[in-house]
């Protein structure tokens, strides 16, 4: 093998660099996002597990139902009725985008476009650049 020394050193350097994230973070527990839950409301529109896993699908269905079909009232499995509105219904209990939505979304590195148009409760008018 020609230049064995250089090649082996190169391979060693490559392996160290490629596996750097693995051994650098080894043994460290990543802190899970801490969400601020509503204080005076115990039950969301559906069961917590369902909301955790499928709120994005549900919001999509709500959006299509309200905008396309004009059906604005959601009757959940227990027969309780809710107005399907992100700004009015969801954010009435979850009063902070920053302390609820963003914490999880940032952790998972997803950036849904909801707040491009919908107004978050913690959106300050003063934030408007002028």
């Amino acid at each position, binding site marked *: 093998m020609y230049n064995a020394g250089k090649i082996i050193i190169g391979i060693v350097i490559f392996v160290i660099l490629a596996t750097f994230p693995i051994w650098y973070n080894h043994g460290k527990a990543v802190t899970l996002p801490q969400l601020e839950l509503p204080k005076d409301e115990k039950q969301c529109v*559906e069961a917590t597990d369902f909301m955790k896993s499928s709120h994005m699908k549900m919001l999509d*269905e*709500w*959006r299509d*139902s309200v*905008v*396309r*079909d*004009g*059906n*604005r*009232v*959601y*009757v*959940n*499995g*227990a*027969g309780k009725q809710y*107005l*399907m*509105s992100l*700004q*009015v219904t969801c954010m009435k209990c979850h009063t902070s985008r920053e302390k609820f939505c963003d914490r999880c979304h940032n952790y998972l590195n997803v950036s849904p*476009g909801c707040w*491009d*148009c*919908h*107004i978050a*409760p913690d959106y300050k*008018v003063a934030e*408007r*650049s*002028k």
Partner: protein
Amino acid sequence: MDDNRRRFLKIAGLSILGMGIKPAADALASAEPKMIPSPEALVGKRWAMVVNMKKLREGGTEVMDRLSLACHSTHNVPDMGNPKSDVKWLWQEPYEHAFPGTESEILHKHHEGWASGLKVLVLCNHCDNPPCVRVCPTKATWKRPDGIVMMDYHRCIGCRYCMAACPYGARSLNWQDPRPFIKTELNREYPTRTRGVVEKCTFCFERLAKGLKPACVDAAKNKELVFGDMEDPKSEVRELLKTNFFIRRKPELGTSPQVYYIL
């Protein structure tokens, strides 16, 4: 043998019945979530508006400004301050621009003098045959069964075909983030729009769902604007049109606009 066949048919029939029981019971005891219309919603077959210019003329442009403000503050409509990127829902056009059609040449002669330079309150006409809907490549705009030409901002890709198709200039593109330009108090129950979507008047579909009339009609205390169901012969709009001479904007184009003007 006969007895056997008879028994076989009985059992077969019962089994088939039995198979039907489970789906039927499921349907009866269904706890599936449902989506239903709000019970207090105003329901119409063909929504339309009458703009009573006789009354608006008395009030002058201040009244029209007030009606526009009612609309814009309800829907967080920005004031871009630049005619090229203006966002328009309910605005004023000179008479000559609002009614340029050749169909009403005699009318123009009749109206010569007093009508020239008259400001007319204009908005989306919610056409029966809307050209904007025909050209939209994503179905972001469509005609609802009650006649409202709706917008789904989630689906709009900002291609502006609809703006080219609309003969009334009733659609506006957000060339930039509109939020910094909202001069009115923010209505936190209604969203804003974002850069790259087209917006327009929606006949306040969100207020109709709550059982309220459109914001501009509510603000028109003197009945300068009247909203109602064209298909209902007893509706206020139909009564007004029965007893008054009315025109529409560019009817010769065949779009069948549903905003009627009493001059």
